[in-house]
């Protein structure tokens, strides 16, 4: 193409070099993207700053800068001691529901996606179509009958009631299928069969390692979905000790806005919010090399 010299000179900014992008365009691009960068960060910055303030400063000092005594450690201490340490329970519950639900959803989705991608069998089309269709079902349409059925079999106020629905991720199955379509060649599976390996061994030893980025993406999406789930736990749990963070924090927030002596709860809601939003974010940042949320764009192929 004759532009390799240009590209070498300008590194990865090849479009720049070829188009001779004007300075104004470049400046406008940086201003626009930096604008949203700041908007994305601002509320997160606000909540971190606020978690270092005591109750008075939270209301009276300037919201976007540190002020007064550094109260983060005190806030943390009261966060975990308030109400006989109920917040610690909420945190552990959330980790448990998310670990089992999100991790299980990844394994189950990978198995199902593999079957849908690499085998042909009777009923495949029906199963696949119904998985897509289920994305359209509103959560209330499910949660209300789930609640009624749960109350009949004793799953209300039970961790199973939270975990079992979290294991089912139609979009996870869909993404695994799309990812496996593009990353696990049929030849490699056939070669395994010729060598006499069983189907399970082929899945665990040959196919699984190739599925890691897809599986990490599904894991992150289902971890976020379970960690952030509000509606299901809100409905099925009436015992505070079983709450996840989302339901617990919203309880405190509504008590705090209701006023009265509960006003002291606001610093706890804010500090608890920081604790509640940090783990999924850290997970995203740490696993950034592996996730391919963009593989969603390969979805909807037919």
């Amino acid at each position, binding site marked *: 193409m004759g532009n390799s010299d240009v590209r070498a000179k300008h590194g990865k900014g090849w479009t*720049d070099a070829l188009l001779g992008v004007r300075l104004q365009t470049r400046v406008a691009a940086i201003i626009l993207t930096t604008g949203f960068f700041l908007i*994305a960060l601002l509320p997160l910055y*606000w909540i971190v700053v606020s978690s270092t303030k005591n109750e008075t400063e939270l209301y009276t000092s300037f919201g976007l800068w540190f002020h007064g005594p550094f109260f983060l450690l005190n806030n943390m201490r009261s966060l975990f001691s308030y109400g006989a340490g109920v917040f610690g329970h909420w945190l552990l519950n959330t980790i448990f529901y998310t670990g089992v639900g999100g991790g299980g959803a990844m394994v189950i989705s990978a198995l199902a996606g593999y079957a849908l991608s690499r085998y042909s069998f009777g009923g495949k089309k029906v199963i696949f179509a119904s998985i897509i269709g289920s994305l359209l079902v509103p959560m209330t349409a499910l949660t209300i009958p789930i609640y009624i059925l749960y109350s009949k079999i004793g799953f209300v106020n039970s961790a199973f009631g939270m975990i079992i*629905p979290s294991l089912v991720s139609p979009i996870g199955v869909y993404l695994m299928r799309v990812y496996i379509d593009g990353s696990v060649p049929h030849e490699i599976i056939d070669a395994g069969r010729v060598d006499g390996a069983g189907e399970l061994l082929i899945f665990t030893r040959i196919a699984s390692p190739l599925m890691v980025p897809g599986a990490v993406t599904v894991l992150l999406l289902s971890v*976020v979905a379970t960690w952030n789930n509000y509606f299901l736990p809100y409905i099925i749990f009436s015992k505070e000790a079983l709450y996840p963070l989302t339901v617990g924090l919203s309880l405190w927030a509504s008590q705090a806005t209701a006023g009265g002596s509960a006003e002291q709860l606001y610093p706890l809601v804010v500090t608890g919010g920081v604790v509640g939003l940090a783990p999924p974010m850290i997970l995203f940042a740490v696993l950034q090399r592996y996730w391919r949320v963009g593989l969603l764009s390969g979805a909807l192929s037919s």
Partner: protein
Amino acid sequence: MGHRVAPYAFLAPFVLLYLLVLVGPLLYALFTSLFTTRLAGGITFSGLANYARVLQSSDFWSGLERVLVFGVIQVPIMLGLALLFALLFDMDLVPMAKVYRLVYFLPFAVPGVVAAILWGFMLEPQYGALAQLIRISGMGVPNLLDSSSILKVIGVIVTWQATGFNTVIIYTALRGVPRELTEAAILDGATLGVVMLRIKVPLVGKALALSAFLAVIGTLQLFSEPYILSSYTPAINSHYTPNMYIYSTAFAGEEYNYAAAASFMLALITIVGVLVVMGFRTWVEHRGGSREG
């Protein structure tokens, strides 16, 4: 395990759970929606009477109208922003774009509950950070949590949460466009705008459609944000969105049969909404195709 049995074995855990938490409850809800519970006389079969009641319920329709207005405005703004940012990242015009994309994505990982608490506090008219800033500049502080602005506030929260997610989806699709295509166009003298709008954007139609698909579903099912914000402001009533209406009839009113019918109605409307979006996409593609030919 032979390769005839294997796919069924691999699918078994998912399908069993799928039947248990999706198909089963849905069929059960469909069944209950056909009955009515009366204080005296117990449960009686009432056919489509619950559905007829939903059709006549002004609370259900006002909530639906609200989320439709919301969707018609918020979804295009969000997708427009996401497409713009994705194109800018794709052109390598922005330094540290990798860090930017990660930060854009972060709000997606914030629980909706925490997001609503956080924004509710920041926008509170007395002690919120925004009110403080406005007061410094000497202007009067608007109450952003009143009935005329609260829907816009929810729009800002949702846009804040989901724009980065969609940016990443569209960006990845843009990266998938073969470089030869754009290079050839540039050598033919195409300008930056032409390359972006005529070559790149049509080729990422699928990614845009997926984003639109997820956004439409999310809009029709709006619940957590308005529900949490309702404790900050009286402007949000118990039937502010269809899902809030269904929730309050089921759990405050204990009208499970009626709530089941209302949630089926919402499911039906969601399907129609998605078909409209998909139909629009086909129409756009058809136009694109005929122009080329």
